[in-house]
Each structure stands twice: as structure tokens, then as C-alpha cells.
């Protein structure tokens, strides 16, 4: 271990450490605190957890916000909708993204760089505008309708917007690069000769894929899936722009609970339950992250 920068060590470690504790950890702890506080009319619209009055010290907490959420099928349904949206789109991203990542990684070096740049360009184009593009494409007078009518599949335009299929399409489209890039990162490192070796030893292509290629790209698959699944559970923008009233999602519920109903404790309890549901995938992500970033030590 290198011993230089001894004096600077302190600042190198503690500036970001302090920042993250202050602006990431404490706010999360605060959500937890508010989620077990009693709702109250006023500003802020909840009662303090601890209060010191003439009757002495009082601790005022409640689980009623959580009970409220889990006794109302409306909230439970929105959780399930979000989880199923995240699950479906992760699988679709994987199925669509894997062959693309594979062939890009296996291209000749000079073509590969160009393809990689082509993959990154949509990723760097504004997220909001890519969702908006689908809104333009899918609407009644949009280009997809025109093509289908022209080809004779439709006689008159149908509205393809404002349903959960449009939401899935939008999610797959905008999150695809998050799947492709980690997959590419693992596939590009992997030695093509292994495929030839398996073939020479008489393995069928399917077996080569299942027994050689797939296990070696598994870390990429897990990383990509987590990068799609976790944020999609909280996704707000895509359902808001492309979705309709047929399905409500978790992100939208939190948004409305906070901005429309102004019920901070319930919004916080919703956010906390979201974190609890996501703990399992987040822990997997953390373990992978620690394993692949610090394996040298």
C-alpha cells in the first residue's frame, strides 16, 4: 500500500465522505423518520417525533402510514404494476440487448469502435426527448399508424398511446443502453478462441453458448439487469408521458402523494417501502460492485 499523500489523506477521504453522509444518508434517514410520524395540518405537515412540553418528554410515533398503504389495494396494485413493468422490460432489454452487445463486441476492432460510438450516441441524447420521440411516433396521426395503413394492416388510425404497452416500449427503448453497455464490457474481454476450442471439441453451437459464453458473461447480465430493473421500479417520466389510466405506477403515486395530496408521511412511507422492496436487488448490485471493483485487494 502506498504511503504517500499522508496529510492529504484526511481531506481526500473525508470531503466526499462528509458530503455523502450529509446529502445522501441523512436525507434517507429523514424519510424514515417522517414515515413514522403522525400526519398533522400545518407546516411541516407532520408532528415532531420527539417533543418537549410541560408534561415532559414525549415520543410520538406511529406505524399507521404503513398500515394505511398496505391495507389499500390501490397502493399494493401500483407496487405490483411497477415490479411487473420492471421485470418485463428487464427481460426484453436482455433479449434484445444481448445479441447486439455480442455482435458489437465480436466485430473487428476498427468497426467495433464505430459501432460503440453509435451505441453511446442515443445514450447521451436527452432521456426526456427520447421518450417524447415515441409520443410523436405512436399517436393517432403518427408515422407508425401511417405506415400500417399504407401497408393495409389498418383501415383507420388507432391510438397506440396511453396504455401500458406503450410504457413498456418506452422503457425498453430508453433503458436498452444500460443493458448493452455492461454486457459489452464483459463480452469484449472474452477470448474468441474459446468458441473455436469448444467447436473443435465437438460442442454444438447451443451448448457452446450455454456452457461457455453465457457463464462468462453472467456478471454483465446481472449488472445490466440491475441497472435496468432498479430505476424502472421508480420510473415516473415514461408512464406519465406514454401511459394512460389503465395502470398506475409507484413513481407516479409518490409524486401525487407529495405534490397533490401533500401528505408527507404517507409519501415517505411509500418511498421507504420502495427501498425495502429494492433492498434485495440493491444488495446483489452492491456485492457485485464490490467484487468486481476491489478484486485486486
Amino acid at each position, binding site marked *: *500500500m*502506498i*504511503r*504517500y*499523500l499522508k496529510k*492529504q*489523506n484526511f*481531506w*481526500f*477521504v473525508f470531503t*466526499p*465522505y462528509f*458530503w*455523502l*453522509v450529509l*446529502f*445522501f444518508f441523512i*436525507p434517507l434517514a*429523514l*424519510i424514515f423518520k417522517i414515515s413514522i410520524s403522525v400526519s398533522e395540518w400545518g407546516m*411541516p405537515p407532520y408532528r415532531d417525533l420527539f417533543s418537549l412540553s410541560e408534561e415532559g418528554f414525549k415520543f410520538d410515533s406511529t406505524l399507521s402510514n404503513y398500515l394505511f398503504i398496505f391495507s389499500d389495494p390501490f397502493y399494493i396494485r401500483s407496487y405490483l404494476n411497477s415490479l411487473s413493468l420492471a421485470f418485463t422490460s428487464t427481460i426484453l432489454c436482455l433479449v*434484445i440487448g444481448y445479441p*447486439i452487445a455480442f*455482435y*458489437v463486441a465480436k466485430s473487428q476492432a476498427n468497426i467495433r469502435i464505430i*459501432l460503440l*460510438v*453509435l451505441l*453511446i*450516441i*442515443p445514450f*447521451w*441524447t436527452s432521456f*426526456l*426527448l*427520447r421518450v417524447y*420521440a*415515441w409520443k*410523436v411516433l405512436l*399517436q393517432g*396521426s*403518427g408515422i407508425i399508424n401511417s405506415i400500417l395503413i399504407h401497408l393495409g394492416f389498418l383501415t383507420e388510425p388507432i391510438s397506440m398511446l396511453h396504455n401500458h404497452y406503450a410504457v413498456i416500449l418506452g422503457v425498453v427503448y430508453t433503458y*436498452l443502453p444500460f443493458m448493452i453497455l455492461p454486457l459489452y464490457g464483459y463480452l469484449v474481454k472474452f477470448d474468441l478462441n474459446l468458441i473455436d476450442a469448444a467447436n473443435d471439441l465437438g460442442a454444438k453451437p447451443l451448448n457452446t453458448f450455454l456452457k461457455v459464453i453465457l457463464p462468462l458473461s453472467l456478471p454483465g447480465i446481472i449488472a445490466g439487469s*440491475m*441497472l435496468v430493473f432498479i430505476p424502472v*421500479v421508480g420510473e*415516473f*417520466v415514461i408512464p*406519465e*408521458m406514454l401511459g394512460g389510466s389503465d395502470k398506475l405506477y409507484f413513481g407516479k403515486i*409518490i409524486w401525487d402523494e407529495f405534490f397533490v395530496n401533500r401528505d408527507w408521511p404517507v409519501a*415517505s412511507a411509500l418511498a421507504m417501502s*420502495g427501498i425495502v422492496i*429494492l433492498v434485495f*436487488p440493491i444488495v446483489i*448490485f*452492491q456485492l457485485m*460492485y464490490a467484487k468486481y*471493483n*476491489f478484486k485486486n485487494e
Partner: protein
Amino acid sequence: MQNTILKMNKIFFKIFTLTIGFSFLYFPILTLIAYSFNDNKRLMVWKGFSFRWYKELFQNEQILEAFYTSIKIASFSATFATIMGVMIGFSLTRISKIPARPFFIFLSSSPLVMPEIILGLSLLLFFISSNHIISFPSSKGQLTVLISHITFSVAFVAVIIQSRLSSYDKNIEEAAQDLGTIPNMIFWKITAPVILPSIISGWLLAFTLSLDDLVVASFTTGPGANTLPIVVFSKVRLGLSPEVNALSAIIMLIVVLAAISIYFINRSNIKK
């Protein structure tokens, strides 16, 4: 003979997959750009080629002001996030004694996967409480958006720096130390140049993350701090806007130019 057919099949399948894949990625964006030149208020009915929406875009005070605000916040956020990201990457790969090290790793990687809506809500509640207790921040606005953007960008920069630092040979630093180089010089003359490309890509990533963020900014913004995504979202939430098409085309042009220049910079570096 059979091998040749197999090989042809493989190449066909490869080109087929890549064509479909890339068409899916580019079709929506290119359509949007094409329609930005349409001289018709009704978006999808083609009337003729014109720059009308570009003219209107550049006369729209609200969009221009939001653009300026966004660029300002993104530059500051990217710069601070890069400085702290380098510190984290450096600490985690080069310094062994960090108090509660697993907690530090947790803190520096969790923002990568925390849903934006939870991050935004928690920061907003935090700013409101801290305003009650110590009267800071005095109001929500550009400063609170900036703090929030730095907080989630740091993690992304740290990942990039970390993977660069853990993949390159520490012995070079140790050799320099054995040769009697002063610690500061080692950092500036050896470590910094090695991680410079990662610093640049980290900065660019943090910049785009900030420029792109809608959800966290919506929670933490206040009067006079409408960022570009907030304004665009309010325009397209319920309907379509030809000006936003023009804006998309301009952003696309900037991204493509940036990508091409990064490609050529990398290529000339490899040749060297």
C-alpha cells in the same frame, strides 16, 4: 462447403441483428429530427421544408433562460462531482485505513441505483428541515438543485475513476516513491496523467446527467430555477410541441459532434 454456408449464415445473422438493433435505436430520433423541419403547426402532416420552428425556438425566452440555467448548474455540478469522484476513487483504491470502509463503499455506490423519485423526495424533505433548523438553504432554487445533482453524479464519476485506478500498475507509483519523488509530484506527474482520460469522461458523464435530470430537479427546484428538462416536460406532458422537435435536433447535432471529436481524439491517442 457446409462450413462456408454456416459462415455465410452467421454473417447474415450478425448483419441482420445489428441492422434491426440500430434501426430501433435511431428510428425515433431521426423521425423527430425530420419533423423539426416541417412547416406545419399540425405536427405530423408534412407541408414543406422550413426553419420556422428553429426561429421560434430561438425567440422563446423561457426555453433560452432554462437552457442557460441548466448549462450553468451542469458545469458546476460536473466540476464538483469530478473532484469528489476522484477523491473517492483514489481513497478506495490507494488508502487502506478508512473508518467504516464498507459504509463508505455503500455511500459511494448506492446513488447509482437509487430510484430518482426517492432521491428527489429525500433531498427535498432534507432541505425543508434544514431550512427550519438552521435557516439554510434560505430558499429552494439553483443552489439546492446543484447540491442534489452533485450528490448523485459523484457516484458515477467515482466508478469510472476507480476502475481506471484499480486496473493500472501501482508499481509505477511505488517505483517513483523509491526513487525519492515527493508525494505531491507523484500524484501530479504520474497518477493524474494516467487517469486524465477517465477524469474527462467522468466530467462529461456528470455534465450530461445533470443536464438530463428531470425528477430530482423537479423536487428540489424553486422559483427562478427552472431547468431545461422541467420546461420541456411542461410543454410535452400533455401534447406535442414543434419547438421541442427543433430542440431535439440541435441536441442530437451537439451529441454527434461531441462523439465524433471524442472518436478522433481517442484514435490519435491510440496511434501515438
